[in-house]
C-alpha cells in the first residue's frame, strides 16, 4: 500500500485514497488539543523544496511536519544556488545527500517532482506541479466533503472555472472519480481542457446546467492577472457568467456545499457573502489541509529504505 512517493492522484488506487482519508480524519483530533504535537516523527527531517512561491501550501506542510515532531526545513529558491544557475536535479541531489526523510516539491513545470523523485532516495510528495497535479489539495477536498456528506460514492461534484490550467481540478477529477462520485466541469470554452472525455467528466458551458442536482460546488481561482483578455473578455463578464452567489446556488441541491482552494477573488468566483458563510466550507478545507498532510507524512516519510537494502538480499 502506497509507493515511495506521492506524485499524483492518478497513480493511487481507491483503497490507498481511503487509507489516507481515514488516517487524516484521525489526525484532525490532534488539532483540537491544547498541546498540538505528537512524537511520531521525532528526529526525522522534512524538506519543503518550493521552486514556486506558495505561502498556504508551504505553511500547511510545515505545520503538519511540526505537529508530528519532525524537523522541517524550508528551502525556498529565492537567494539559493538556483539563482546561481545550479540545475534542479543538482539541487535535489545536494539536498538528498543531507539525508532528509521526505522532500515536498512545488514547481511551476509539470513533471518536475517526478524527475526529482527518480533520483532521490527520500520519498517525494508533489505539492503542485504546473497544470498537472496537486494531490494533497484534492485529498483534503475529499476529506472535507466526506465530513459533510458521510460518503463520496454517488455524489455529484461540479467544478467551475479554469479547468484547463488547474492542477487542483485535474487531481480532484481523478480523486472524486476513483471514489465513485460523478464529476462535472464548467467554464468558458477557452478554459476547458482538450481531453475532457478521456478524463471521464462531462463539460457544461452554463452554470445553471452544471449546478443542477450538484451536492458539491467547487469554484476555482481565476488567475486574472494572467488570463484576462486571453481566455475571457473581462473579469466582470466572468463573474456575471460563472461567478457564484446565493441566488445562483439555488440551482444546486438544497444541502449543497461550496468549496474553493483559495485564495478567493471576492466578487469574481464567489460573492463576499458566500466566501464567508455556510454553505461554504473554505476554512474547513484549510484546517483539514494540515491533518491531511500529517497523514501523508505519517504514511510515507522515514520508512525503511527498501531500495537501498535490496541489493544485499
Amino acid at each position, binding site marked *: 500500500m502506497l509507493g515511495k512517493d506521492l506524485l499524483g492522484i492518478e497513480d493511487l488506487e481507491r483503497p490507498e485514497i481511503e487509507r489516507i482519508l481515514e488516517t487524516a480524519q484521525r489526525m484532525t483530533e490532534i488539532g483540537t488539543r*491544547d498541546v498540538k504535537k505528537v512524537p*511520531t516523527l521525532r528526529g526525522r527531517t522534512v524538506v519543503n523544496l518550493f521552486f514556486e512561491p506558495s505561502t498556504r501550501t508551504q505553511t500547511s506542510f510545515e505545520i503538519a511536519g511540526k505537529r*508530528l515532531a519532525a524537523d522541517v526545513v524550508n528551502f525556498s529558491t529565492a537567494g539559493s544556488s538556483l539563482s546561481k544557475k545550479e540545475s534542479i536535479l543538482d539541487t535535489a541531489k545536494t539536498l538528498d545527500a543531507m539525508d532528509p526523510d521526505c522532500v515536498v516539491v512545488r514547481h511551476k513545470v509539470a513533471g518536475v517532482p517526478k524527475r526529482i523523485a527518480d533520483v532521490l532516495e527520500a520519498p517525494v510528495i508533489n505539492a503542485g506541479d504546473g497544470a498537472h497535479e496537486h494531490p494533497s489539495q484534492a485529498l483534503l477536498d475529499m476529506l472535507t466533503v466526506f465530513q459533510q456528506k458521510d460518503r463520496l460514492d454517488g455524489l455529484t461534484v461540479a467544478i467551475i472555472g479554469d479547468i484547463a490550467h488547474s492542477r487542483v481540478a485535474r487531481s480532484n477529477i481523478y480523486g472524486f472519480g476513483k471514489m465513485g462520485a460523478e464529476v462535472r466541469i464548467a467554464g468558458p470554452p477557452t478554459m476547458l481542457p482538450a481531453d475532457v472525455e478521456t478524463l471521464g467528466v462531462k463539460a457544461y458551458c452554463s452554470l445553471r446546467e452544471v449546478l443542477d442536482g450538484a451536492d458539491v460546488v467547487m469554484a476555482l481561482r481565476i488567475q486574472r492577472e494572467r488570463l484576462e483578455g486571453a481566455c475571457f473578455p473581462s473579469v466582470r463578464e466572468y463573474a456575471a457568467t460563472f461567478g457564484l452567489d446565493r441566488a445562483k446556488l439555488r440551482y444546486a441541491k438544497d444541502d449543497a456545499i461550496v468549496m474553493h482552494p483559495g485564495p478567493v477573488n471576492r466578487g469574481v468566483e464567489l460573492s463576499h457573502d458566500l466566501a464567508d458563510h455556510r454553505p461554504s466550507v473554505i476554512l474547513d478545507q484549510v484546517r483539514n489541509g494540515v491533518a491531511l498532510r500529517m497523514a501523508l507524512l505519517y504514511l510515507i516519510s522515514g520508512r525503511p529504505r527498501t531500495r537501498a537494502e535490496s541489493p544485499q538480499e
Partner: protein
Amino acid sequence: MTGTRLLDDVAIRRALMRIAHEIVERHESLAELYLVAIPNGGVPLGRMLVENLEKLSGVQAPLGILDTTLYRDDVQGTAERPPLRVTEMPSSVDDRVVILVEDVVNTGRTIRAAMDALMDFGRPRAVQVVALVDRGRRELPIKIDFVGKNIPTQPGESVELVGEGGQLEGALEVLLERSGAPGSRAGVGTPGGDSSKGVG
C-alpha cells in the same frame, strides 16, 4: 477466530465487577476518577467498568478513549504504518486520578505509550492501570494496579479479546493462539493487533 478460550463472557464480567469493587475500596473520593480506555480492546471493558462503578457508588466517572499508535516506539521502523484509531478525551485530565484500561498487557510498551500520550492532555494527579489479562512478559518497569487474571504465556503465543462476529460487541471472550515465530513483532502493521501481540 479459533484458539483456546482463557476467559468466557461470564468470567470477564465477574472480573470487571471485582475490579470495580477494588477501585472503590482503594479510592476515598471517586469523584476524581477518570477512566481512559486504550482501543480497541480497552473500550468495551472501560464502558463496563464505568457502569459497574456507577452501580456501586452512584458516581459516573468520565470515560476517555486514547489511541497510542502515534506514541509507539516501533512505528519509525515499519514500512507499512499501523492504522490510527479513535482518540476522544471528553475533558482535561488535570488533577484527576486516571485509570488506564487495557485488555491484555504483556511487554508494557503500550502502557508506556499511553502514559506519554496522557501527559499531552494535562497533568493527572495519579495514573493507575487496569488489565483484564496480564501476560507478565514485561520489557519495561510497568506495574499493573488491577488485574483480571494473570496468564503467563510463551513467546509466539497471542492472547486476544474478541467479541461476536469479529466486533468487540455482544458476548466477549479471551482466546489464546499459538502462532508466529518466537519474539516476532506480529502486531506491527496488522489492524488492532498491537494490544495483544508483539508490543502489548
